[in-house]
């Protein structure tokens, strides 16, 4: 059986002992103008677990993530329908406090986006915006999150220098630290390792592992081996009739070892996609 996998040993993280849905998505559809990008997606994101979303390019994974923190509001012509609930909040409610929501649901982009400010200011800026102004508090948070992402020792002597002078991997970890500083409940990660070399990628992956239990993580990745190593749950997207849809969702172990759907099996075995 193991011979069919070429992806290395399977370590699907521990199944969440008590799966408690934090985000519920029902029959979600998304259109860019008249072009459908997602059609009828339903799934639950479980609290404290790492959920990996896999699938070929253009199947709507990024679009799915941006529904969850309402970044779709920023895209002209983007229409969303269906039900999305987070913590008893209706995410489709036009009157929702979007800034508060985005504080609870942080997002990491594929390409790190450090602001052209100092390392310290990068983390301070959103914190100040959310009302933290005492320098002592700020310093404490900065140190804590930089320690969390394993960046503290590398940058503690150069907090005042530009964040854009950091390496790609360091920049991505800074962005994660910046998101963690807001104490989000959920972290959406859109291919956080794809722009990184294997070593930086490994560091970020270890970091994500350590987030398990404390945060709810949804990670999009093209790296199937990575998905198998870190995820508790996995969702497989595929493009059907020009619109992305969710083919299969379940425990990571099941998706990779005993997929219910032929497409999933073909994709995880590397013969399609």
């Amino acid at each position: 059986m193991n011979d069919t996998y070429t992806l290395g040993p399977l370590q699907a993280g521990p199944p969440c002992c008590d799966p408690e849905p934090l985000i519920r998505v029902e029959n979600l559809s998304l259109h860019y103008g008249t072009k459908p990008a997602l059609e009828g997606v339903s799934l639950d994101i479980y609290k404290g677990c790492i959920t990996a979303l896999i699938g070929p390019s253009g199947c709507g994974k990024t679009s799915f993530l941006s529904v969850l923190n309402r970044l779709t509001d920023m895209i002209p012509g983007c229409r969303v329908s269906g039900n999305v609930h987070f913590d008893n909040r209706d995410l489709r409610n036009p009157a929702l406090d979007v800034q508060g929501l985005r504080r609870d649901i942080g997002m990491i982009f594929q390409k790190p986006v450090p602001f052209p400010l100092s390392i310290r200011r990068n983390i301070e800026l959103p914190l100040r915006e959310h009302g933290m102004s005492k320098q002592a508090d700020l310093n404490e948070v900065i140190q804590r999150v930089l320690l969390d992402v394993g960046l503290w020792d590398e940058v503690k002597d150069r907090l005042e220098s530009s964040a854009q002078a950091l390496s790609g991997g360091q920049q991505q970890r800074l962005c994660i630290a910046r998101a963690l500083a807001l104490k989000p409940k959920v972290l959406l990660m859109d291919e956080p390792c794809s722009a990184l070399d294997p070593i930086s990628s490994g560091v970020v992956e270890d970091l994500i592992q350590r987030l398990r239990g404390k945060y709810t993580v949804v990670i999009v990745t093209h790296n199937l081996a990575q998905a198998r190593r870190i995820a508790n749950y996995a969702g497989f997207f595929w493009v059907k009739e020009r619109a992305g849809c969710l083919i299969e969702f379940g425990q990571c172990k099941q998706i990779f070892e005993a997929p219910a759907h032929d497409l999933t099996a073909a994709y995880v075995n590397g013969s399609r996609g």
Partner: protein
Amino acid sequence: MSKNELTTVLIWLMAVLVSGVFIWLLADIIIHGLSKLSWSFFVESPQNVGRSGGIGPIIVSTLLILLVAIVTAAPLGLATAVLLSEFTRHDSVFGRFVRRSLDVLAGVPSIVFGLFGNAFFCIYLGLGFSILSGGLTLACMVLPILIRTAEEGLQATPNDYRLATAALGMSRSSALFHLLLPAATPAIAAGLLLGIGRAGAETAALIFTSGYVDRMPDSLFDSGRALSVHIYDLSMNVAGGDASAYSSALVLIILLLIINSIAMGLAKHWLHRSIVTV
């Protein structure tokens, strides 16, 4: 000679020609203008319709007119640019309409602005021939340049900043003030410099608005003669005024150079304060 060499020679020829014309112009003005330049020329009032005496009041009027123009045009221009680039959809009817109008306005000859300024500021608003009328007319004239350059600068800032700040729950206005405007500073400064340059060199728009009077202005409601108007008058209407015209032209060039370097310095300072550049 190979095709490549020919191209090189041609390109060099062009460069030499263009800078040659500029250097000739500058040298002409410096050679003819330098002789009359002295401290008293800067502070004294013109005598004998400008053939002798200095250009003190004219420098003051020029600076006041420029000041009025910049102080009104810069905030208005920046606000419009922000509205266009950040708060309206790029393909909206409103945005397209405003952009098209600005492009048309930018190409309108300055004499038309002069007539408009005369009709609107001098007569309709009752400001008369005054420094205020002239400055406001110049403001209208440089607004299109200011808005379009600032807007392009804002559009050129990475969209990633907008998404990343939004994803951190930050408001659009703080993204604007902390990241987008500082990143667009060079473009905004360039627009401002272009505007000041155009305003400082303007004659036609001022003849009908700020007027000819070469006395020292007491307030913004007094008429005041701008340097460019003075040069025009000396070289066109005053026999034997050429020497003074040359000196005034030299002063105008120096003035614009000084203003430009101050603006550059300020932009750099601001940029450095808000953005770390390594």
